[in-house]
């Protein structure tokens, strides 16, 4: 299976951008964006679909950390 060339990469990225735009507009409700999801999966190799999905989750998580901060995990309880 050959790697995507420049045009195919661009088609995939555009589909991904449209999907993410739709998800941003619909508050991450995947049901409202089925069309874009279908487009995205058609234009991108399966590995890339998985990768970009994980990437979106990571970006949202990073955004949340930067906006709200985080509480460090508690260490092991020590009997004082």
């Amino acid at each position, binding site marked *: *299976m*050959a*790697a*995507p*060339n*420049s045009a195919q*990469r661009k088609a*995939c*990225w555009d589909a991904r951008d449209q999907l993410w735009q739709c998800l941003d507009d619909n508050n991450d409700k995947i049901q409202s964006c089925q069309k874009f999801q279908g487009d995205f999966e058609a234009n*991108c*190799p*399966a*590995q*890339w679909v*998985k*990768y*970009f999905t994980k990437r979106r989750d990571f970006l949202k998580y990073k955004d949340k950390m930067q906006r709200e901060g985080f509480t460090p995990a508690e260490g092991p309880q020590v009997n004082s």
Partner: protein
Amino acid sequence: MFSNALTENKRKHEKYEIFYFIFSLMLFTFSFFSYCTFFSLFFHFLSYSPYPICASREPSAMLRVRCTLRGGGGVLLCLHRTAQYRYPSGPERVLTRSLSRTPDSSRVALKLQTRLGVTLLVGVGLLGAWWWVEQEKQQRRQRQRVEQLRTVALGQGTFSLLDHTGHRRTKQDFLGRWVLLYFGFTHCPDICPDELDKLSTVVSALDRDPALPRLQPLFITVDPERDDVAALARYVRDFHPRLVGLTGTPEEVRHAGRDFRVYASAGPKDEDGDYMVDHSVLLYLVSPDGLFLDYYNRTKSPEQIADSIRNHIRNHVPL
């Protein structure tokens, strides 16, 4: 990694730099004002001493206030005001006028020129000294960085790989050229195309300067199982025309990667046999002597990289 220590030091130094600069600026402005007030006071005492009442503290006090208020450009204003000292009203006026016109105005004119000249000289001298010290510090910092990278000693070994036209290339073939190197794979979703675009932008930017030597961009695959010569030929077409793709047997590729301590780890295969290769994302700069000089991560913009490379080329001392 040591890059964190380098950026830490840099941040600390930059903080001190700012304080140092503000402090010297304040010192400079303070000496401006004290110069201004001191000389105007001195001048007043000189010219008014026969008339202690008219001489009065009042005009000079007013002057001092005006000097402080008007700030940097106030030198000229101070001097202007001292030239126009206030005449006391009444019969004494005629006396003071007749007694103290021409010699005073010529003395004022002379004092004006010398004062202006000296102030400008001092100002320019201070600024020049600061700028020179700044340059020295930057050069020293650059030398320290090169020393640190030298001790890390990446890229010391050799490699022997096939390029995207099927010819065998070794490290020796690239000696005498400045090399900008990137490790990646053709099935990469977005990172490798972005980094290779950045690499192409940098090389094109440096190509525009005829005084600089032509850089050699290299792309070495971390996925030799899939990226054979044909795959590489298709891939490098989309980027800079001088970009050379390199591949080989897994052993050869692993050897080249180890030389630059590149991390590469293939992920699990899915039902299509497709997989991702997790790898470190860096652009490596190698000097014409074949020595690793610098690296650039994803946060560096093309302009920053091009500036850094220009610096390295300018300061390069051949072995």
